[in-house]
């Protein structure tokens, strides 16, 4: 026996395998995916580090309870086909989740090797399996139950809606997804940029549910083209997964100047409308030289990194707390920093100043300091009086969050909302205050993550199926 090998297998390997990435100098000039994914060799090497715990804690950190050690053990054996099957039992969007899930706060945070900072790269392995399946060219279709004759309408084709669709169609129900935009995928399509989540992957995942038999109707605004009550006449159940799509602004002077965008607008222009191909695509995009992005979440990082790729010379993140409180994933803020985004922490914009043509030219900010922790547990930012200063900027992207889109709640009598505008829905079942209507994802929780939306979708699907079988609300 090779003594070196014995040495390796007998010891716990704490060396997390890095995933190859495009170098920052190159990637800041293109929209191709930043992280390149594991090779088969790297994936097996990483998978072998898994201790296959008897009571896996990673699983408890996953909102959809994927059988993590099981799928990893298939990678170790090189049986990727069984691995992806195992993964898909619990997660119908592995290529997406492997990329955009905050694993460091979920499954990976629970990994026992994390005690020694060597947690298994579960997300990367998940991504590997999904990509392996895609390149193999043949996606195995799981068996479908025989038709029940029950019809379900799903409003919104984002992660929550697609999960509900995938689950219910396998149970033999007839599923129709309604999407307001011209492309399915919700935030995965209009929001998350190409370099973080290639659109071909989203299209593939939506196509999978379509091939399972779900009908996807785009360009259809439920609440406008047809109301929920009208849908209820044709369908046995309705699931509302319309997301958090109403951008917040700060209510400061100058916000309606040209050059001030909501992150939704900025990213939609670039992603959904292919603005990055302008003028070959026809949605106009203005070239900006100095771009400020207000906010510290993933959407802010996405916007800043998009601005760089659009050719901006100076891109700044303006955030009112400090680095430690940035809500973005560490990986994303690191990527942004590597690419050259400048971070202006403890800074709050108070006023936008325009030129004579109504275009932004300067922003006025205040310096902040951190006080006592607030309700969110993070230290509260406090304005430093008279610390005003100005920055020359020709664009601002406001990425401070979204409220739920009110279109469905406001046109559906009987659907109760909270004071935050989210739909009231049971946490375990997704049942709303209106009979035969379920809801899940950001429309219930407020802006959150893809995987939480999927988790909610899964629970709702279970509850919908139960209702369809028993007839009991």
């Amino acid at each position: 026996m090779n003594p070196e090998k014995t040495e390796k297998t007998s010891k716990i390997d704490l060396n997390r395998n890095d995933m190859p990435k495009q170098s920052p100098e190159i990637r800041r000039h293109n929209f191709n995916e930043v992280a390149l994914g594991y090779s088969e060799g790297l994936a097996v090497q990483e998978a072998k580090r898994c201790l296959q715990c008897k009571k896996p804690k990673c699983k408890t950190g996953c909102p959809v309870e994927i059988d993590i050690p099981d799928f990893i053990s298939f990678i170790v054996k090189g049986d990727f086909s069984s691995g992806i099957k195992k993964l898909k039992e619990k997660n119908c969007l592995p290529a997406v989740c492997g990329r955009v899930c905050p694993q460091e706060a979920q499954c990976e945070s629970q990994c026992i090797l994390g005690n020694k900072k060597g947690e298994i790269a579960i997300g990367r392995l998940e991504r590997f399996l999904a990509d392996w399946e895609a390149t193999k060219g043949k996606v195995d279709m799981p068996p479908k139950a025989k038709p029940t004759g029950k019809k379900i309408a799903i409003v919104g084709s984002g992660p929550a809606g697609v999960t509900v669709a995938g689950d219910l169609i396998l149970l033999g129900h007839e599923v129709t997804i309604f999407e307001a935009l011209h492309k399915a995928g919700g935030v995965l399509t209009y929001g998350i940029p190409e370099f973080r989540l290639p659109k071909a992957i989203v299209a593939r995942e939506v196509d999978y549910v379509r091939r399972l038999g779900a009908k996807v109707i785009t360009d259809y605004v439920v609440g406008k083209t047809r109301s929920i009550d009208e849908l209820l006449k044709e369908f046995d159940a309705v699931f509302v997964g319309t997301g958090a799509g109403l951008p917040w602004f700060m209510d400061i002077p100058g916000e309606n100047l040209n050059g001030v965008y909501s992150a939704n607008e900025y990213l939609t222009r670039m992603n959904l409308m292919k603005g990055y191909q302008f003028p070959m695509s026809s949605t106009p995009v203005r070239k900006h030289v100095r771009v400020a992005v207000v906010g510290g979440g993933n959407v802010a990082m996405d916007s800043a990194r998009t601005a760089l790729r659009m050719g901006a010379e100076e891109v700044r993140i303006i955030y009112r707390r400090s680095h430690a409180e940035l809500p973005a994933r560490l990986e994303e803020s690191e990527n942004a920093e590597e690419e050259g985004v400048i971070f202006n922490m403890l800074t709050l914009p108070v006023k936008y100043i325009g030129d004579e043509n109504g275009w932004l030219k300067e922003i006025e900010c205040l310096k902040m300091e951190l006080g006592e922790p607030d309700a969110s547990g993070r230290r509260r930012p406090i304005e430093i009086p008279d610390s005003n200063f100005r920055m020359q900027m020709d664009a601002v992207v406001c990425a401070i969050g979204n409220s739920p889109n009110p279109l469905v709640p406001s046109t559906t009598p009987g659907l109760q909302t909270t004071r935050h505008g989210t739909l009231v829905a049971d946490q375990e079942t997704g049942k709303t205050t209106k009979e035969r209507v379920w809801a899940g994802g950001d429309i219930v929780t407020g802006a959150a993550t893809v995987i939480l939306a999927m988790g909610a979708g899964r629970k709702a699907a279970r509850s919908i199926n139960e209702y369809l079988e028993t007839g009991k609300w």
Partner: protein
Amino acid sequence: MNKVIERKVIVPNMHLLTIEAPDIASKVKPGQFVIVRANDEGERIPLSVADWDEGKGTITIIFMEVGASTGALACLAAGDFVATCVGPLGNETEIGNFGTVMCIGGCYGIGSLYPVVKALKKSGNKVIMVFEARSNYLIYWVDRYIKLADKVFNITRDGSIGYKGHISRLSDVVNGLPDPPDRIIVNGCTFLMARASEMTKDLGIPTLVNLNPIMIDGTGMCGVCRVTVGGKMKFACVDGPEFEGHKVDWKEFLARRKAYLEEEALFFRRSEPKQAVHKEGKCQA
């Protein structure tokens, strides 16, 4: 994908487009709009609905050919398809018995006011229609309006019909009436709506306008259509498109409308040099 039933030039540079859209035709109300995308690479543009036929399941739009996107729509023929036609979006125009309502239409607004005037008449209003155009040959659907409206006036820049001059002649139209109208509704280009609102403010007549900002999704998601009304930020797509003209910040609105003028030109200037081959001094493309 929606089938094009008809597309024709109605007056120079102004097109009538009838699209198969049964769901929209059964739902649309006066003052609402749809978002249309001519093809897969196309921009999403909001266009007011000028007419519909629920029985046939069709809607009709009147639009002016101004840029790349309307240019693509202008190339459509019956039997073609538009990539997107979604709606009806926005709130409907407030309809009630107001007494006498003056409707001022210019450009595409002559079309979009038609269902409004129909509904106003149905609710028992007296309707005075005012056409505003550069010249009489740019006014359309006169026959339709003559059947509906109680009185019709024209204001043309060249004086070819009616009052000569710009919308500033509106005060002459109003002052010539035995009683001022109880409300004025203006549909048309931004300048027309802004200027008319300015004038009716002095005349003290409540005025409603149907705003036409740049939009993307049309469902409140992107916020590009934001407009300041009465000092508050509103989204034209979900809070409007109808607003009180006297409360709109027109200067800001105009600036926002013009945000992409330069880029629009850029789109037309894009060149694909590989496609043009020059040989012996001649273009072989």
